[in-house]
């Protein structure tokens, strides 16, 4: 099957209904027409089944149409966030062997790596394609829809492959509780490079409308919601904090659901939002390898830190890492099993059955259930950092810092931040003591700015003489408590 067919089905059912509202309203009929035009253009440029096509664009109706057009050709979407540096984007382009890239800007290294610029329907954007791509047969049997890196780069992360059938399973499971339907108008504020399956695809498959706000400032968002009669807000805690601080008299009368995702929601933001709008925020727990196994739809103010009960189609169990044989521990690592799980990791290739034993996925998050079966995320076992919903590994920062000729080793770690969840800092050990620490720190900082997306750059770098290590010699990492 193909997700493009699901959009065609929605279009047959509701051709004149708005699918997307941005600068103008775009009906389902207009959207499918745009998709077919782009698909034809992609085909002319040689895009075929099984090809991988990169998208480096900001949110827009074109982003959505382009994704479906790629699927219409049987090819796979590879989202590449616009926040990444050129080097980070190029790492993905090369390691995923892309047939083409559609980008909002020039890629200066593209020609060096066999990607040639082209013209045509993409006159507002830059289009690069490759005549020759190295065959990679490991994935040939997969009906790939998405290939997304868990942190947006290849370093210390793995490409998550989701097939068309998997995405359909995922959105069907989520919609048993979300009940997205043709009466819904979702106010969209997330990055499409990071959120698309159990969201954009879910909404369009079920005949809903997606409204892209002109900007994410609270006044504009509230005006849009009231004008377009939005029914669902889907945003990060940062966006919800902006809304909760709004001083106008605009309300959310048409809204039936406010979903917070991408990072943990603080009690402070949840309480302020409820006080302003009298609508509770629903926290959702989603992971790219799994989908959306938990949503806090009960969401009474007293359960703010919870991500709610497990969705009907999923199972969750906790395993205490210190006592793995204990059954039903109070706290432990969260394991999830259910429909729509990851099909494979891209490279090194690892299929689903080898990633998960008996279908259980180890999330790396630590959780606990209350007496009513509501799950709370209380910490993490894995190293993943989350800054305002942008996820990455600290090793990405350390690998850049360690490139400095005077650096022996480094560790980067998050600190709590009221608005963003976390911000990064780093400690560095030099190969030799120096009287010029300030200058060295400035050089390291510049190295980070040249090679890392802005949100990954440490806000402070400190030169130290020791960094704690575990018994096995690994860097000892500490993370702030989650859900504060």
């Amino acid at each position: 099957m193909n997700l493009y067919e699901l959009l065609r089905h929605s279009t047959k059912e509701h051709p004149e209904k708005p699918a997307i509202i941005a600068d103008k309203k775009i009906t389902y009929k207009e959207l499918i027409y745009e998709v077919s035009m782009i698909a034809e253009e992609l085909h002319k440029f040689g895009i075929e089944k099984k090809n991988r096509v990169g998208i480096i664009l900001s949110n827009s109706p074109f982003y959505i149409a382009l994704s479906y057009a790629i699927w219409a050709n049987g090819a796979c979407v590879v989202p590449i966030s616009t926040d990444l540096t050129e080097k980070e984007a190029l790492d993905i382009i090369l390691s995923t062997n892309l047939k083409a890239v559609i980008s909002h800007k020039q890629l200066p290294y593209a020609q060096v790596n066999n990607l040639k610029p082209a013209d045509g329907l993409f006159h507002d954007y830059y289009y690069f394609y490759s005549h020759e791509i190295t065959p990679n047969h490991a994935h040939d049997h997969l009906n790939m829809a998405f290939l997304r890196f868990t942190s947006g780069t290849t370093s210390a992360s793995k490409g998550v492959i989701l097939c068309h059938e998997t995405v359909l399973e995922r959105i069907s499971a989520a919609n048993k509780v979300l009940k997205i339907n043709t009466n819904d108008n979702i106010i969209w504020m997330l990055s499409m490079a990071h959120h698309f399956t159990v969201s954009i695809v879910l909404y369009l498959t079920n005949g809903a409308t997606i409204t892209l706000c002109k900007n994410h400032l609270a006044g504009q968002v509230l005006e849009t919601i009231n004008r377009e009669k939005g029914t669902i807000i889907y945003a990060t805690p940062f966006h919800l904090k902006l809304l909760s601080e709004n001083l106008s008299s605009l309300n959310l009368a048409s809204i039936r659901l406010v979903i917070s995702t991408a990072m943990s929601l603080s009690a402070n933001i949840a309480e302020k939002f409820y006080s302003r709008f009298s609508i509770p925020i629903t926290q959702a727990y989603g992971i790219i390898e799994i989908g959306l196994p938990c949503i806090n739809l009960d969401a009474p103010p007293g359960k703010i830190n919870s991500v709610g009960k497990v969705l009907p189609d999923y199972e969750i169990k906790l395993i205490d890492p210190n006592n793995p044989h204990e059954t039903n521990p109070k706290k432990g690592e969260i394991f999830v099993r259910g429909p729509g799980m990851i099909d494979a990791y891209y490279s090194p290739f690892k299929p689903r059955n080898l990633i998960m034993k008996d279908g259980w996925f180890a999330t790396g998050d630590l959780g606990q259930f209350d007496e009513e079966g509501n799950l709370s995320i209380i910490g993490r076992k894995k190293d993943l950092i989350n800054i305002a919903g942008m996820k990455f590994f600290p090793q990405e920062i350390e690998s850049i810092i360690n490139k400095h000729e005077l650096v022996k080793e480094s560790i980067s770690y998050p600190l709590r931040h009221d608005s963003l969840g976390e911000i990064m800092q780093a400690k560095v050990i030099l190969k030799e003591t120096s009287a010029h620490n300030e200058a060295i720190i400035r050089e390291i900082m510049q190295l980070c700015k040249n090679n890392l997306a802005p949100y990954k750059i440490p806000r402070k770098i400190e030169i130290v003489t020791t960094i704690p290590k575990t018994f096995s010699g690994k860097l000892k990492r500490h993370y702030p408590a989650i859900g504060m």
Partner: protein
Amino acid sequence: MMDRVKIEQELVEFFSTKETLDPTSLISEDTNLIEAGLDSMIMIELLLFIEEKYGFWIPEAYLTEEIFKNIKALSTSIIELSNNKNI
């Protein structure tokens, strides 16, 4: 005393590096940042930049279209908020 001209220069420099802003126009003190394409990610980077450079986090209640009308308006807000750091 904060130097308005210096702040505006620093802000112009900051926004000039943001590639998702409208590439067809040069960023100047009069550029309407909203119309140029200011999005959540650039806003977060800006808040971090201001916190690092001028020593405070702009409260979310102050993040309105007015403050982003242009760089002059933004620099005025930075100076006013900096003078009143009990926010």
